[in-house]
């Protein structure tokens, strides 16, 4: 797939194939951290950074495992690298922004088990992206994830002011909202189709 431009990959990952709303990756933090706008943005930034690191490492690792014909170790090496990258981000946040560290709480280490991060690594491998394409893909995926998270947080902050029946409270409501957002994002389909 050498013929797809990096810009096209980026756009597609942000909008048309948004990681959260079209590919269902990274739903855990999407539903968990999207209560407040103030935490959604840093969470998005942290995840984007981890995605970028994971994507770079995955590119190198994939070269290694293919070179030595050890494809069956691919998954294990990816997950170990991602776990280390998350640990790194965790330490950096703890040192430079303890307040943010507390706000993100349990969801920071949970980036390890964020399918979106591993998804970036796995999809770029499956689609045989080049180095530049992988970078564009990782940044696009991160931007798309942050966009979805921030939009959702904005919506949920407004909803706090609304009177919602008891039955619909909580996750059910969040899912319905996500469905509407996803429906809206479907309008972006076709953006990637160049002529």
């Amino acid at each position, binding site marked *: 797939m050498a013929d797809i431009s990096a810009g096209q990959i980026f756009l597609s990952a942000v909008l048309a194939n948004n990681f959260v*709303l*079209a*590919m*269902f*990756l*990274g*739903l*855990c*933090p999407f*539903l*968990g951290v999207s209560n407040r706008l103030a935490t959604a943005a840093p969470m998005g930034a942290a995840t984007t950074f981890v995605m970028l690191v994971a994507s770079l490492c995955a590119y190198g690792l994939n070269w290694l495992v293919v070179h030595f014909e050890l494809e*069956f170790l691919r*998954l*294990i090496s990816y*997950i*170990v690298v991602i*776990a280390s990258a998350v640990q790194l981000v965790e330490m950096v946040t703890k040192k430079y922004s303890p307040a943010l560290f507390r706000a993100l709480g349990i*969801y920071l280490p*949970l980036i*390890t*088990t*964020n*399918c979106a*991060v*591993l*998804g970036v690594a*796995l*999809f770029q491998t*499956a689609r045989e992206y080049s180095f530049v394409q992988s970078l564009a893909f990782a940044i696009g995926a991160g931007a798309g994830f942050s966009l979805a998270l921030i939009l959702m947080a904005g919506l949920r902050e407004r909803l706090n002011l609304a009177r919602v029946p*008891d*039955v*619909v*409270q*909580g*996750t*059910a*409501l*969040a*899912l*319905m909202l*996500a*469905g*509407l957002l*996803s*429906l809206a994002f*479907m309008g972006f389909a076709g953006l990637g189709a160049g002529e």
Partner: protein
Amino acid sequence: MAIPGQQPLSHLEEFMEGIWKQNPVFVMVLGMCPVLAVSVSAVNALSMGVATTFVLLCSTLLVSLIRNVVPKEVRIATYIVIIATFVTVVDYLIAAISLAVYEALGAFIQLIVVNCIILGRAEAHASKNPPLRTAVNALGMGAGFTIGLFALGSVREILGAGKLFGVALFGPDFQPWVVMVLPPGGFFVLGAWLLLFNWLKNRAAGSAGKLAEGGAHG
């Protein structure tokens, strides 16, 4: 989850925990990514459920067996490596059994690694309980997860394609609700199922208990 000081549950109760009280899909809302992504048809949903159950059972069993020798500091790393191992095994097994299913599930088989249910079970249950109890609990959780996936997959396939297991249910005049097999449909159907469960729970608890908000991470 065994709360300290509580009576240990019988094995049957342990099994039912995962299916009803702590159903990973409907009650705990865990592991949502594969649930929504592969539930476009009943077959996909079932295969995903069985694959996840297999990984869950094997990895929690191993975790439970070695729970007394693994130092606390490295336990999460150990768990992740164990889970990744079994996922790789399942990945190859599915490719060997049916390439069609393998391609339909795609990257989501490998994404089982980051399914919170498995790491959650390993950490919260398997690391504190003997193998037999762990296995029973894991089977229950797996069954609950499979049921949840199937509930979602069958509804989406029936409404979105007018079929179940690939067999057309309605006449040729049926106009499928295409949106149901598209991404938004996944959110809507799961939301609807949660509504149903909330309503049942509310009715059972009467007006007394305010429903516990499902902790959402998956």
